[in-house]
Each structure stands twice: as C-alpha cells, then as structure tokens.
C-alpha cells in the first residue's frame, strides 16, 4: 500500500516536471498563431516565411556555415582521433592532456587569442572567422579518440593480414564500426555551431553578417508572435537531426564497449 502511494507521488511529480519541460515548446508552436490585437492569425508566420526574404536567407546562410563547420570538424576529428587512438608517437600523452585542458577551458578564455589569430589571418568580419576556429574544437577529437580506442587491435591486425592497406583499414573497418561516434561528433558540432552566439558577436562586423542564432535576438521585443515564428524556423534543423539520428546519437554516446 505504502509502495503504491509512493509510486503515485513519483508519477505525479514526474508528470508535472514533464509538463514544465514541454511548455516552452508548446508556447513556441502555438504562440505564433496568437496576435494580441487580432487573436488567431497566421500573420506572424506570413511575416517570417513569406513577407520578407531576410529570415529565410539568413537561415540558409547559417545552415551553410554550420555544414562547413561540421564537415571540417568531423574530418579533423577523425584523422586526429585515429592518430591518438591507434598510433604511438613521442609526446602523444602530453598532447592529449593539453587537448583535454583546451576542452575544459571556457570559450571566453580562448576568445581573445582566437580574435588575434583571425585578425592576423585577415579573416575577421567574414564567415570564415566563424568556420575556421570551430573546425578545430577539441571536443570532436576527444570523442573520436575515445571511439576509436574501442575498436579492437585484433580486428585491425586481421584486416592487415587479409591485405588491407592503411586506407583500406581506415575506411573499410574503422569508420564503419565507429559510425555512432562519427554521427555523434557531427551532431554535437552542428548543434554547437547552430547555437553559437559569442563568436559571431566578437568576430563579425554587425547585424548584416550575424547568423540566425544571434539575429534572433534582434526581432522586435514587442512582437512576441513573430519571435515565436522565428523560433520555429530555428528549431527545424536540430529537430530533423535528432529525429533522423536519434539511435546513432545514443549509440555514439555509449561507445564504451569494445568492438
């Protein structure tokens, strides 16, 4: 009896917590349809999706920037992760240690040095100023190193005995068994790039250059319904990634088992 009561209380608490989590998304979906002076209306969605091309052009531009970042980061992470996981070279452990330190450093700490480097490279104020530093974010390398470490050396030796070369082993054995980690790195780098706020403000010239994550804050504060409609637009790519790759994402995060 006491157990049943406890179970009920837990259910109620979980239910209310669940509602608390869902309410913001529900507000985003429904808020765009309600206008303070007109009641139910599609006007906010019309304004964002059809009234002007500004929102959608900025959306596609931001998506393009993110895809460059994802492609670059996955490439760099895979290559460096494989090196850390499967090769021995002098200073490997100390380099990995520094990589982990870099990973835990707050963004604000590295922002000024990055700014100076970008200035020296003469790419400040351009999209490349967002793409270039994000390609070398250490989290991807760390994730891929951990992922490749779980690929057994025996498997690689067998492939080598069967006549596989370096590329054959890498693309034919290592990459297919590490798909989860790869997808996880890709998704995390995409989300990181899609949600970036500080870097565009620091590295770009002004509103005209900002990606949608920053420009969203410039939608007039009095126009709630338009803000909600914009939020829906911003929500779409992460929603797609999660709905398509949810299984790989979970698999990628749980890559402790040896393959």
């Amino acid at each position, binding site marked *: 009896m006491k157990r049943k009561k406890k179970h009920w209380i837990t259910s109620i608490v979980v239910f209310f917590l669940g509602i608390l989590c869902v309410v913001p998304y529900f507000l985003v979906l429904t808020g765009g349809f309600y206008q303070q002076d007109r009641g139910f209306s599609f*006007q906010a969605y*019309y304004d964002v*999706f*059809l*009234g*002007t*091309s*500004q*929102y*959608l*052009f900025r*959306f*596609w531009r931001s998506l393009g920037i993110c895809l460059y970042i994802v492609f670059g980061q996955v490439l760099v992470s895979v290559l460096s992760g494989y090196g850390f996981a499967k090769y021995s070279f002098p200073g490997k452990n100390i380099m990995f240690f520094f990589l982990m330190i870099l990973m835990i450093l707050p963004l604000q700490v590295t922002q000024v040095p990055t700014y100076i480097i970008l200035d020296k490279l003469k790419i400040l104020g351009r999209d490349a100023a967002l793409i270039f530093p994000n390609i070398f974010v250490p989290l991807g390398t760390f994730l891929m190193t951990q992922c490749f470490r779980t690929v057994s050396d025996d498997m690689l030796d067998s492939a080598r005995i069967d006549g596989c070369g370096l590329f054959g082993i890498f693309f034919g054995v290592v990459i297919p068994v590490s798909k989860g980690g790869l997808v996880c790195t890709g998704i995390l780098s995409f989300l990181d790039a899609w949600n970036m706020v500080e870097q565009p403000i620091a590295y770009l010239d002004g*509103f*005209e250059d900002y990606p949608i994550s920053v*420009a969203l804050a*410039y*939608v*007039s504060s009095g126009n709630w319904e338009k803000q909600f409609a914009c939020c829906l637009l911003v929500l*779409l790519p992460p929603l*797609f990634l999660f*709905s*398509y790759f949810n299984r790989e994402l979970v698999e990628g995060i749980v890559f402790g088992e040896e393959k």
Partner: protein
Amino acid sequence: MKRKSIYFFVLIFWLLAVCTVLSENIERLMTARVVVYEGAHQSMVGQGDAELTLEALTRDASGNHLYEIVKGSGWESGNRVEETDSHFYTVEKECVLITSGMGGKYILYASKEITPGDLVQKVTPYKGKNEKYLVIAPVGTETVTMDWEDTELLEQKGNILLISQTGKLPYMEGMMRDTINLTKESKIYCLGEVKEFFENMPLLSVIWVLLMFSVVLWGYSYKLMSNPPENRVLLAGNLGIGLLLFWGFTNVTQRVSLPSSLLPKENILDLTYYKNVFIEIWKALEGMSSTAAVELKEVFFKSIGFAGGVIGFGIVCGVFILLWEHRFAKKLSQKNKAATFSFLC
C-alpha cells in the same frame, strides 16, 4: 521511422526553399513606391515652412497621419516608413504645413497603402503614355470638374467616370487625385494596371500547378519508398522531375509582376481584399460600353480561361507522368522477375 523522418523533413525543407523564392518576390512586389518631399533643415522655426498636399495625409479612425522615410536597422533595414510626430505639422484647409524646421523626407504619394515599418522605395515620377482610368467619385457627386487639359472623358455613369489621361508613372492613386482635383474620398483605378493584374493570372496558375504537382510527386515518392531497391530508378526520376519543377517554379515566380496599386496593405494572400477591389471595379464597369471597359472585360475572361486551361493541362500532364511512371515500374518489376526466374532455372 528513419524513412518517415527523412521524407517529412524533405517536404519541410522543400517548403522552406519554396518560401524563400516566394518571399523574395513577394517583398519585391509589396515594396511600395513613394514620392517624397525632402525638406531642408531650417535655422529658425517658422522660416519658410513647407506646404505639402493633403494627399500626404492618411486618415483613419485614430486621426490624421503623416509619414516620412527613415533608415531602418536590424531586421528592419532599408528605407522604412515612420509616422511624423503630430507636433511637427499642422493641417490647413488645402495643405499640410510642416512647422518643425528639422527637415525630413515626407511621403507625398505612395503606390499602395502604407503603414509604419513598411519597406518603401523612393521614386521620381515621369510622364507615361496615355492611359484609361476608372474614377469612382463619392455617391452624390453630380459633376466632377476636370481642369486638366490632357484629360478626356470617355464615359460617365452617375458618379462613375471613365477618363483618358497621360498620367505619371509609376501610377499612384493620390498623385492622380491631385492631378484631376478630386477629394480623398474618391477612388481611382488605372485600367492598364488592372489589365496587367489579370494578365498575370495564368502565371499564378502555373505556379499553383507546379507546387501542387511537386507535393503529389513527393507523396508518390513516399509510396515508392516502401521498396527502395526495386524503385531506385523511379525515385531518381522523381528527384529529377522535382528539381526541374523547382527550377520552373523559380523562373515563373520571377516573371510575375502584380501592380502595386492593386495589392493589399499587409498580406499579399489577403483574398478578401482582392474580392472587394475587383467587385468594386466590376460593378463600376457594368453597363459601360466604351472600348476600354469592354477590352478590360475581355482580358479578364481570356485570362480566367487561360488560367483554367493551364490548371487543367497541368493536372492532365501530372496524371500522365504518374501513370507512365507506374507502367514503367510494372514493366521493370516484370523484367526483374523474369531475370530472377531464368537465373534460378
């Protein structure tokens, strides 16, 4: 689940691409052209106050509004409409007197109704060709005096007049009212612009057909995805057709040029507005026998017929392509079955 999610999001992203093309063109069409008076900054208040036409004022339930152009920022960049503070001007019997002495770009005429925040384009009117205008004076107006030498009265039916005039371009109702000395209560439609609107109807129907066919194609492809290896060729074909349709849609959309004077204030899809405007024009033209009126009616029926034809042709084409694909898929499947059978034998 994966297949469903990719198909659902393909549709979503395709819709976003369609919206991008549409929004770019809607913005182009909905941007009002305005004629402005650029007041100079005066060192002393009252020194050479500027006089603006009464047409510069917009009247509604909340009173008079005078608008000016300002440079916007953020999402509202470009030339934007802003309401002038009522302390900066006085409304006289025949003009609006600017008393601020601060200078500014006051909007005299606009090609369509404007509200604060709207994006506008500054233009300088130029003399156009001879055009026919439909004037609907307020009920009770017996005679309309036209003290303009270029104006010719073609037909009159009570308070409704059909006139011919070499007006200025781009057409702005307020500017025309000032030219022929009519009050703000009267409505003037440029028949050339109404004709242009009707002539765009077939293009609009092409856009509709292309969009509808793309959605049907998406639905058909979703069905084909139940067996992707067997329907690989058809799916690739559908992708090709989809891209071709999108290319066609982009091209056709860029060709649409709806006259600004006949577009609604806020939403280009406001069908009630179009209904009211065209019912008003139609009623005014009813019973008129002059060539311009008859010609406009003919253009309307021709455009409607052409638009209907385009929709019909689009449906027939769509059905034909899908049936042909279906037959092709059947043949392909029979061929594959025969090949498998001969291999097993």
